[in-house]
Every structure is written in C-alpha cells, then in structure tokens.
C-alpha cells in the first residue's frame, strides 16, 4: 500500500511532466519526510521487534539468523521466476529496458509502474519482518540498509536478483574482513573503496550484461 502511495505522491506526476530522472530526488525527499515522521511519532530509539515465529530458545538456530537468509533466497528465486515466466514480469523487464518502446507496443506503463512500486513495497515489508529481530525497529535504519543495498546491487549487476544476493554476500564479507584486519573505523571506507575498484574494472557488475543498443 505504501509502495503504491509513494508512486502516486512522488513519481507519477513527475514522470508525466519530465523526462529527466527527477523522480529519484522526489522519492528521496519522500523517504526523508517519512523517516522524520517516524522519528517524531515513534521516537529515535530502536524499539523491539516481535518474534515472527514463536520461539523460546536462543542460539545459533535462532530464527533471527536464518529467517533473513531464507527469505532473501526465496525472494531472489521468486523474482527470477516472476520475470521469466509471468506476463507482468516480462512487461516489467520491457519497461525497464525502454518504457517508450513498451508504451508504443501498447503496454499500460502507468499501471505497470504502480504495480512495480507495490511489489517493491511488499518485498521491503517482508525484508523488514525478516530482519527486524536482528536490527530492531529503528527509524534511521533505511539509510544504512539502503546504501548497502545499492552497493550490493551495483556489484552484482543491476537487473539480476541472484547478482544482488552475491553482491550482498561479497559486501558483507568485505566489511567483516576489513573490520577484523583494519578495525571498524575504516570498514566503510575500505569496503566501499574496493567496491569502486571492482566497478571500475567491471562496470556492469558481476552478473550484469552490457546492453547493446541498435541504432
């Protein structure tokens, strides 16, 4: 629901009147407003997150460790299947490659865009439920997780769900190794620096493909 609302508020009108990527700024502005509102309503301290599955033990088999992993894999596999085997998934890919061409072929691009935001909102909510036990419910979490998500996506290759998973794993490993060998003060600088290096060498990411456009 919120995914759809953000499309209506921050994207639809801007995309209709401008060909530029101004919607990136408007969604960023909306997310900042929402974050501030959360801080005002619920406070700036993290709040506890309930168990998704009832559990009365703790340890290595705690759901807070395996739930996010399983869900991430399920979501990645599900998205791949959705893109490959469903008509709406194929329309999503068509729109991401060239929305004008898709519209010319009769695709209801506005509706597809709304659907894509709804899907994004659903996946975000599921991820929140899976990770909430580890991260707690914190108003400022979006920025930290969002940055990590972008890096993982860029490493894995934009458009590849499996790539995003692998990218996330690489980022996590690099961050942990950096913290271990050099200290956590430098973990972000070194991890992101190495990622930039990787992207310079392979700009399309590990699983991305170079798009050739016929002219």
């Amino acid at each position: 629901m919120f995914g759809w609302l953000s499309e209506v508020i921050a994207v639809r009108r801007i995309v209709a009147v401008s060909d530029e990527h101004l919607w990136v700024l408007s969604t960023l502005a909306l997310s900042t407003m929402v974050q501030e509102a959360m801080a005002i309503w619920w406070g700036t301290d993290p709040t506890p997150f309930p168990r998704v599955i009832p559990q009365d033990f703790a340890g290595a088999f705690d759901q807070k460790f395996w739930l996010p992993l399983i869900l991430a894999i399920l979501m990645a596999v599900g998205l791949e299947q959705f893109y490959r085997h469903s008509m709406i998934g194929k329309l999503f890919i068509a729109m991401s490659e060239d929305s004008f061409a898709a519209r010319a072929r009769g695709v209801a691009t506005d509706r597809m865009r709304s659907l894509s935001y709804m899907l994004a909102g659903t996946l975000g909510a599921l991820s929140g439920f899976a990770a909430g036990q580890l991260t707690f419910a914190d108003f400022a979490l979006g920025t930290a997780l969002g940055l990590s998500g972008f890096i993982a996506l860029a490493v894995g290759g934009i458009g590849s769900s499996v790539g995003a998973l692998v990218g996330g794993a690489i980022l996590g490993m690099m961050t942990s190794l950096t913290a271990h060998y050099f200290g956590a003060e430098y973990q972000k600088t070194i991890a992101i620096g190495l990622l930039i290096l990787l992207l310079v060498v392979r700009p399309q990411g590990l699983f991305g493909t170079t798009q050739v456009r016929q002219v």
Partner: protein
Amino acid sequence: MSNIRPLTAVLGRRQLVAGAVGLASGLTMPAIAQNKPIRMGWIAAVSGMFASNAQAQDWGFRMAVADLNEQGGLLGRKIEIIMRDSAADPSKAVSFAKELVYNENIDVLCGPINSGEALPTLGIVSGAKKLHLIGGSVEELINPIKYPLGFRNLNANGQWIKVGVKFMVEDLKKTRIAIINDNTGYGVLSRDSVTRSLATHNLKPVYTATVDPNKPDVTDELLKAKEAGADVITEWSNATGFVARLVNARGEQNWNVPIVGHPTILQEQVAKLLTKRSYWDNVYGVGYQHEIVDAQGKLPPGVQAFMDKHKDTIAPYMAAGLPAFLQAHAAVTIYAAGLTKAGDTDPFKVKEALESIPVIDAPYGKFIYTPTDHNGFQDDGIKLVNANAQLPNGGYPPVKILTIKPGGCNLAAGDCQRTGAWRPLWHDGTCLQRDVFDLKSAEFWHRPVRNGRRHLHRLAGAGPALAALAWVSRLLGLGRGVRLAQRSDRGAAHRRGIR
C-alpha cells in the same frame, strides 16, 4: 541682603529642570537594575535525536528556577529563562548562542547540553564575556585559560571511565578486560581512554573490538573476547540498539561474564530490546551517588525532597532517569551559589566566587571549582549500579559484591537472613568452596526444603566432596535438572548481590 542667589538665576530654568530630571534618573537607575530580572539563557535540544533526555533536563531546569523564584529569586531579583530549542543541530546551537549572548543580553548561558553542540558555542560565549555553564562531558569543553568563564555542570567522560575501570579492577577483581566500543568518534576516544586508565593499574585489555553500531549481530566479537580469556567486558557506546545486541549476544552464549559500561546500558530502552530481561542481571552501568538508595529504599534527602515537591509533574520525565533532570538542576544551583556569593551579576565576579566556594552541594553531586580546574564534579559522585536493580523511584540499591572465598565465607549471619540469599540452615558455621557455589548454589538456595534435598545442605559443609559429586554428575549428564534450575535462578542470585 543675602548673597545667595537662587538656582534659577545661576542655571536658568531649563537647565535646572534638565538637571533635576537627570539627577532623578541617575538616582533611580540602580533601583531599576535591582528590580530587573536575572536573565538565564538556556539551550536544550528538546526536539530531535536527544529529545527525551533534553525534555527531562528542561523540566529540571525550570523546576529549579521556579523553586528559587518561590524563595524570592536571587539577590532579591526574579529569574527569567530565555530558552531556545537547538533540535540537536550544532548550527542552530551556534545561532541561538549568538542571539542569546548578544541580542537577549543574558547574564549566564546554560547549555547546550550535549558536547557536539556545546563545542562550537564555546568561542562565542567566551568572546561575549558571559558566564557559561556547559552541559557536555567531553574533556575539551573545559579550559580555564582559553574559556575562563566556562564551568562544567556534570562529570567529564574521563571520570566515568576512571571510575568504571576502578570498579572492574578493584571491586569485581577482574584483570582480563575486553573492550568493545562503537566506531563513532566518542566510542574510539573512550576506547583509548579505557586503555590508558587500565595502564594506570598495570593492565592491558585482552581483547579490543571497535564495531559499527548498526552491525546486526556482535556474537563474533563476543566469542573472540571469550577466546581471549576475558573475565569482564567493558562497552562504550551510547547507541541503545548496539548495547542491547551486545547484552543479548552474551546471554545467548550463556556466558555470564559481567558487562560494565556507559550509562546508556542502564536505560529501560535497552531492557526492552533484550530477548530476556534476565540478561540484564550481570550488567553494571555508570550511575551516580544521587541514585543510590539507603536501606529503606529512600533516595538522598536533597533528591527526595526535590522529587516529592514536584511529584505532580515529574512522571513523564522519570523514564529519562534522575541524572537527566538533576544535571540541569545543578546548572541553576551552581549559578545561584556563585551569584549569591558574588552579590553581583558581573560574570568575572561570579567566576571568582565559584572558584572560591569550598563545595557546592547540588542534588546532582558535589562541585569544587578552582582557578585551574573548572570541571568541578567529584569522582566520588559516580557509582556503578546494577542495571536490573532499578527501583520504582528511579534509584538503585548499592552494588554489593560478596565473594565466597575458598574455605571461608565472608557473610555475617545477619546478612544471610536479611538478603534472603542464604538460608540460616546453610550458614551454620560451615563454609562453601567457591566451585560448589558456582556449580550448584542456585538450586540450593531456592528450594532447600520443598524438594527434599535438605541433606544436600549439610553436604555443603563438605565443599570438596560436593564439588567432586557435582562434577561427576555433570560428566555423566545427571545434573541436567540442577543446571536448568541454576540457569533459571542465576538472575535471582545476582539480584541478591552475589556473584
């Protein structure tokens, strides 16, 4: 005929009138100044990141001023508060400091109340030659040569660390200390400060970890500390989520090593994030003498009187803890003491007065300022408290560390009965071995008669034999029930002040 000429002939009527007006106004000026209220500038971030603590401080400040005004004010003048909300934004704090010292013509500035905001305001307030009561704990905020009118109205961060380290080494008798801090500037500075403080006890940390406060799990760091042989963990972070993850990770590892750390660890907010509240048992945070209750559960008289007087409005601010509102109260108390002694609002006279008062006894604690030290707060005002022992009045019982010495017990019989931790049956002159206590004690205290194990208590006197029995039963897997009871009751043991 008299030679005396009328004044009108000498000065002229207009000059006389002007002179009379001038004389009258000159005579009344001191009277007007006497009636003018004392203007206290007050900057607190009552909105934004630190809002809950700042709102409690704001309440404490206003109540302290209201109490003084009720008694007739200071030097016979009422006190007026000119308050600005910096919203935890240093740039706003700077603008408000400028406005207050230059436009609002305040007599003293109290706040900002966190170090990040206070640091950039120092030069402004010092340049305007206004008295400044600084509410941040970072060491760099106080420098009597650079900022001669700046006085701190709480403890410095180094004092927390010094007292915390002393507690671990001298009270808990721990020597293998692991430091876990977050990677913020504060966390890294505190880590270095702890390391220096340990060096004064000829100790080095056995393990040090600087961790991203957003890291979702710190089990890895904790296991490394365990492998390094740590017997106590000290954490320095003010991120509640990070601190809670650390306490959770320790609880989930069933590693009941004490955690000693920053006052954040005492916040109820941390307890809410714990998987089990019992994980909070063996956790000690830096608190204050003004939070320590007596045997009747009463807070120190000054604190209790203040809370009783304002009991109708205090409720929303109790969650932030007593130190929050008492800290702001201290700012008012300190200024009042200096002003009363100086008898004048001139900041340099108040400064000299503050430096010459032997002790300023605020409910927050004792302050002693000298010309070379404007920190004031005394180390003995800081006390470590057990996180899970907070009472409804916001106070804590004093931490009682009882050591069961091998072959001897240092508890008096009265102590045993009063705390309820030790049954008189137990304490019949026999003494426990430390190993026996560690392995079995919880089971013994809790159900000594009901489960028909009275004979085991008699065995307690035969410490080594029981220890051997316990080890054998554990090896054979027979002690599961005992261990379960021990696990479930370990929290109760610590609440009763026994390690």
